Each structure stands twice: as structure tokens, then as C-alpha cells.
């Protein structure tokens, strides 16, 4: 069938089963937007900044596992989108981002709103394309969706010049992708797996070190089964929160810079570290040569470059995590496996000695209390998104996560401004369920994409933003206090808008709360009214995120909370 390039884009999205697209129109992408106007197969959400379009698509992808889609125009439209692309790249989130480009005849002449988009997106995408000929467009779109969602997922950027979207050609959407140069390894090496299983059988203190790959390959329940069947304790990275279920007796918390005492001690003492889709990020390992220094390492990852990038594993296994964990479960049937109950007991002792805690107050809301309280009120009904900073760490530490994809945070890139658009994507993805999309944010981060309140109001996307407001750029303030002799350089955010009036001006619900009773009432009211809301929580100003492993230190060298009673 003959059609324009613009129609091809819309048709391809339809054939890929896309239901929601986030985006923002502009000159070079107008032909595509004209076709969007004429179609009914997918809904388009008009964000108020391109960065938010990409992040909303990420939220959608993180909540569902499907590929998120965003469309932006050339030049500034595209450059605004770059932070979102980089964010998705660092956290391996499947996205297809389509940008308009000036006509091929203008490319290279510094035309209006021209920028070398593929030149910019190359280091922050899994792959990118500049469409030079209309004949290539169907194949490129098909490949983009294939590459984004297979292997180690990631964002794919397709830059389409305006004359290509206007040109007419035959359209046949390919059924399959044939890329001789792209064949991700799904199946693990059987010999290696056998060796690894023998190591597990003979270990004394094995530890499951679970990363974001467990979410991406949808194998949380297989990992729980593995832990329970072999009685192996587990810890999670920031990206893996929700995999184990915090109530699981074999789960010992998040590890890393702000990890729980038991989790960090587990990593310090283990004699066999079983890495499941994790990548030894510096925020996890602390001082690298001390990380799990008593352990052999099994490293399972779909991306060969993750293996032996930072640590040299004794048992490297390249493969899809779900496939591999299933094989581990099966292989364990034929093995006599050590009893690890003493090891599990030891970790329970650690947890009892030094549980994750904070010192509560009757006069002021502690930010940790607020997170915990949301957990008590909403529990598994809420999907939690965050921005970046202290509130993010408190959310990771104190929210009682119980299932995968309940947690949506910017881990790798650490993008302030992520929370609101991401929570919007989550809410859109789960609009037909009883889930509540909550964005736990800070008074610094929320202002970085505040314009999205308009989007939420326009489409009635009921995101509940909970600002843990300490009038500081809190995480930087904490570092300044700890490592810069309390010189608070440019971190005092006392000058800020009236958030209640602000959200009301946008057309949403506003609350300011400073007592626990008001907090409860605000959450309940916002959940009930199912409207975009913002709850400005006045919290204790100088609270630190603890435990903390100072930069360059080993995980067992934690700064712990002192004072108060252990709960």
C-alpha cells in the first residue's frame, strides 16, 4: 500500500501494539502529528516539555515492561529529550523515541531548528538511526522496536527528516527482523552453569545479589523460588527493589552506599556472591577492592560487557536471567546442597542488632516516617516513583515493597525531575487498575518538571506528589555537612513557591501538612478524589540518610545512626 512517511510512522506504531504515545509537536515533525490527528489506534499525551515526554514513556515502560514511545520535533525538541534518553540508557529501559529533522536538502546547512541529533544521541542510546530514504523507514521502525526490547533493553532513537515524512512510497511492515550483526545471547553456557551450581552447593555463605536485570527479565518470582528452595539469603540493589518482597524472611534489604547494615555486612562476609542482573555500580560496591572480598563470584548478565567490567567473576554466565534462573532451579534438584541456615541466622542477628531505623518525633514529621506511613496506608496498592536525592533513598529504604515494578526510580543517571513525569507514565499505564501512582519527591526535584501538573490535569492523570520538604537540596546538604565542614554552598532552598497555591493554579489538589494527622488526612483525601495532587509535607530539616558508606570506603565501614532506641 502506498502512503506517506508520516502515515508509515503511525501505522508502524499501530502494528507494534502501541497504546499510548507521549510527545510534543513542532515544525519538523508536523507531518507525523497530522497523521496522529487522523488516527484512533493510540492515544497521544501532550507533555509540556520534551524531557517529560521521554521520562513519561519510561514510567510507562517501567510499569508494564512494554516499550515506551515518545515523539518530539527537531533541534530544541530533540535536545530537551536527551536527558530522558540518557536516563533510559543508564537504566536499560526499552524506548523508541522518534524525532523530526529538517529536510534532507537542508541537513548540513545550519537550518532553522537543525541539530546533529544522531550525533548527540549516539552515546546515550542503544542504537540510533537517521532515515535517509523513505524505502528504509518501515524496516528501521521494525528494527527500532526489536532492538529496544530484546537483549539488554534500551532506548532507540529514530531521526526522520521532514521531506521523508512527506514522501510517498510502498508500505509493508516487516514481520520479522533480520539483523546479521545483532544476536543477543539468551542461552547460558551449560558447562559454566554446572560449575556455578557446584560452587553454590559447596558454599558456606552464598548471597543473592539482585540487580535491575531481575525486573527487566521478569524473573522476580523465579528468584524468590530459588532463594527459598536453596535457603539462600538475598539483597537488592536500588534498581531491584520489589523483587524479593520485603516481608520475605530471606530478604536482608538494599545494599550499597545507603544500604541496610545487614545487607552490607552480608556482602562483606559472603563467600559466594551470586550476581543476578546487577552490574557492580560504584554506589553499590563502595571501595571496589574490598567489596565481597572474601567471595568467589557468579555473575549472570545478558550483556557481556557488564561481565568483567569492574570485577572478574569466577563463574561468568552470559544469558537471559529468567532462562538461567529457571535452569538453576532445575539443576539444583540433582545436587546435594549445603545447609545455609547458620548463615541466614547470622544475618538475622545483624538485622536485629542494627535494623534500619530513624528517631521519630511527636513535634515534627520525620521524612522517613512519611515514607513508612504511605506504606502503611497504601502498601501494595501504590506504585512508587521518586525523584533523586534524600527522599529517594528514604523511599528505597522505608517503603515496604512487595512486588516487581512497584518501584520506579532513576538509578543510573540520577535525574532530578524524573518523578512527576515518570509517575504520570505509571498512572497512564495502570489507569484501568486500582493502583495509585505516588511520586515521593523533594522540594528541589519537583520544580524541575513542575509544568507536568498541567498535563496531569488536562488528561486527569491522578498522580499524588508527596514533597518531603526540608527547604534544602538535601542530599548535597548532607554531603556538605559531612565532608565540607558544613559550608552549605547553594543548597538552601528556603525561597520557594507556595506549593499549595501552585498546584491549585494548575488545577490540581493542594495540601500542606505539618502533623501526622494532617498527613494521613491528605493522603486519604487525595487517593479518594482521584485527581492530580500535591502534598507539601513540612519535614524535619536536618535529617541525614543513614546508614552511609562514605565515598571510597568499604561496605562494612558504615556510618550508622546513633541515639534513640532500636525499634
Amino acid at each position, binding site marked *: 500500500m502506498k502512503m506517506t512517511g508520516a502515515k508509515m510512522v503511525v501505522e508502524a506504531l499501530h502494528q507494534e501494539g502501541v497504546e499510548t504515545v507521549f510527545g510534543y509537536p513542532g515544525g519538523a515533525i508536523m507531518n507525523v502529528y497530522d497523521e496522529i490527528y487522523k488516527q484512533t489506534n493510540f492515544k497521544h499525551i501532550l507533555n509540556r516539555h520534551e524531557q517529560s515526554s521521554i521520562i513519561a514513556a519510561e514510567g510507562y515502560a517501567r510499569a508494564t515492561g512494554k516499550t515506551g514511545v515518545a515523539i518530539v520535533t527537531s533541534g530544541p525538541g530533540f535536545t530537551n529529550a536527551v536527558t530522558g534518553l540518557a536516563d533510559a540508557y543508564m537504566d536499560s529501559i526499552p524506548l523508541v523515541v522518534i524525532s523530526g529533522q529538517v529536510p534532507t536538502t537542508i541537513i548540513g546547512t545550519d537550518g532553522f531548528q537543525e541539530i546533529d541529533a544522531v550525533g548527540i544521541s549516539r552515546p546515550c542510546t542503544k542504537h540510533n538511526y537517521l532515515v535517509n530514504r523513505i524505502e528504509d523507514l518501515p524496516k528501521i521502525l521494525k528494527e527500532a522496536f526489536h532492538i529496544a526490547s530484546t537483549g539488554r533493553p534500551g532506548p532507540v532513537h529514530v531521526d526522520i527528516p521532514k521531506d521523508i515524512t512527506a514522501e510517498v512510497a510502498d508500505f509493508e511492515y516487516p514481520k520479522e527482523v533480520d*539483523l546479521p550483526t545483532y544476536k543477543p545471547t539468551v542461552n547460558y553456557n551449560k558447562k559454566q552453569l554446572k560449575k556455578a551450581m557446584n560452587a553454590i552447593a559447596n558454599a558456606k555463605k552464598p548471597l543473592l545479589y539482585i540487580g535491575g536485570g531481575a525486573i527487566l527479565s521478569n524473573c522476580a518470582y523465579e528468584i524468590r523460588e530459588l532463594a527459598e528452595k536453596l535457603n539462600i539469603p538475598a539483597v537488592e540493589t536500588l534498581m531491584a527493589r520489589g523483587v524479593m518482597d520485603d516481608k520475605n524472611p530471606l530478604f536482608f534489604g538494599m545494599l550499597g552506599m545507603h544500604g541496610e547494615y545487614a545487607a552490607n555486612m552480608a556482602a562483606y562476609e559472603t563467600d559466594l556472591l551470586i550476581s543476578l542482573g546487577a552490574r557492580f555500580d560504584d554506589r553499590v560496591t563502595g571501595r571496589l577492592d574490598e567489596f565481597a572480598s572474601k567471595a568467589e563470584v557468579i555473575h549472570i548478565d545478558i*550483556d557481556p560487557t557488564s561481565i*568483567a567490567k569492574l570485577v572478574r*567473576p569466577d563463574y561468568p554466565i552470559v544469558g537471559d536471567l529468567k532462562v538461567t534462573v529457571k535452569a538453576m532451579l532445575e539443576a539444583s534438584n540433582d545436587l546435594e546442597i549445603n545447609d545455609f541456615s547458620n548463615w541466614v541466622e547470622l544475618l538475622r542477628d545483624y538485622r536485629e542488632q542494627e535494623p534500619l531505623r530513624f528517631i521519630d518525633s511527636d513535634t515534627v514529621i520525620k521524612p522517613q516516617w512519611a515514607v513508612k506511613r504511605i506504606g502503611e496506608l497504601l502498601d501494595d496498592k501504590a506504585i512508587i516513583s521518586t525523584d533523586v536525592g534524600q527522599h529517594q533513598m528514604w523511599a528505597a529504604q522505608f517503603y515496604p515493597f512487595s512486588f516487581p515494578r512497584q518501584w520506579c526510580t532513576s538509578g543510573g543517571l540520577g535525574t532530578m525531575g524524573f518523578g512527576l513525569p515518570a509517575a504520570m507514565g505509571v498512572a497512564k499505564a495502570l489507569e484501568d487498575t486500582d493502583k495509585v501512582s505516588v511520586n515521593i519527591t523533594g522540594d528541589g526535584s519537583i520544580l524541575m518538571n513542575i509544568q507536568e501538573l498541567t498535563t496531569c490535569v488536562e488528561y486527569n492523570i491522578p498522580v499524588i506528589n508527596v514533597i518531603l520538604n526540608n527547604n534544602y537540596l538535601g542530599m548535597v546538604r548532607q554531603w556538605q555537612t559531612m565532608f565540607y565542614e558544613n559550608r552549605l554552598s547553594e543548597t538552601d532552598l528556603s525561597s520557594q513557591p507556595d506549593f499549595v497555591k501552585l498546584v491549585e493554579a494548575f488545577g490540581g489538589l493542594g495540601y500542606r501538612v505539618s502533623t501526622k494527622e494532617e498527613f494521613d488526612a491528605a493522603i486519604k483525601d487525595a487517593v479518594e478524589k482521584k485527581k492530580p495532587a500535591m502534598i507539601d509535607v513540612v519535614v524535619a530539616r536536618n535529617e541525614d540518610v543513614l546508614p552511609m558508606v562514605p565515598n571510597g570506603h568499604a561496605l562494612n565501614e558504615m556510618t550508622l545512626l546513633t541515639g534513640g532506641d532500636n525499634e
Partner: protein
Amino acid sequence: MNNFNHYYDSETTRQVISVIVMNEHNVLSRIVGLFSARGYNIDSLTVAPIEGSQYSRMTIVTTGEQRVIDQIVKQLNKLIPVLKVNEHKNVIEKDTVLMKFSVDNNLSDIDVITRAYHGSIQNVTDDTIVVAATDSSHRIMNFIKVMQKFNPLEVVRSGIVAMER
């Protein structure tokens, strides 16, 4: 756990890598960008299409610790348009140099030395003479060093091409 500091000797090695890539827009910038983004060295890079196919061969000479070289190979393999990456162990390497001299030099000396490096005179004008030599990389470097005494006006090297024995 094994930390790299203890594992590999941190000696720098030189590695010749050939990369078979799809002939497409942007592919060279992907390869070069990968090296610069991750702080890897490129000592030499040559590219030419492979006859009768949709692929090109890039020959890259790099230096680094073994750990870095392993990562380079894996990172190259991860790029979508890369078909194959060969880490060469036993190769014939050739490098070509073009050198231009003033004709005021002793031309017979230039000719003799050039021939000793498997080279020859390519062109002579009223003012200048151009010689070319093709040989292994370290011999070419020697050749350039030796020829310095004739005050070369211009030196152009091709970069290295390599083939497994």
C-alpha cells in the same frame, strides 16, 4: 573476590583488532565515539570496504591493559552494526608512508635508503621528490627516523592494515 588490581598484570600491551562492520551512515563515528567515550586509545585506524559485500573492515591498533582490551572487544561487539571483532595474535602488519623532500638533497642516498625499506621514488618535480615505502609498522617508524636527516617537507602515514598469518 578477584579485583583486577591483583589479577592482571597492569602491563600495557599493544593489540591489533579488526572489526567487520556494516557499511552504513554513522558507523565510523560509533566506533570512534566508543573509544573516546570510554577513554580507550586509538593508535591507528584504517577503513576500507570489503569487496562484493555490505561490510567494511576496520583495522584498529590500540594499547591498554589486558582488562581494557577485553572490554574494548566486548564493547565493539555490542555495537549493533558490528558483525565480527577479531583480536589478532599472529598477524602480518603493513604500514605505508609517503615522504616529500627538497631536490637539493643527495637524491641517491634517499633512493638507496628508501629501497632498503621496500620503497621507491614515486614522483619528482623541479623542487621536490616524493618517496613511498610499505613495511611493518616499526620498520616504517625507523625509516621515518632515518630520513629525518634529509629534512622531510611532509610525512603522511596510512595507518596499519593487518592480516592473520
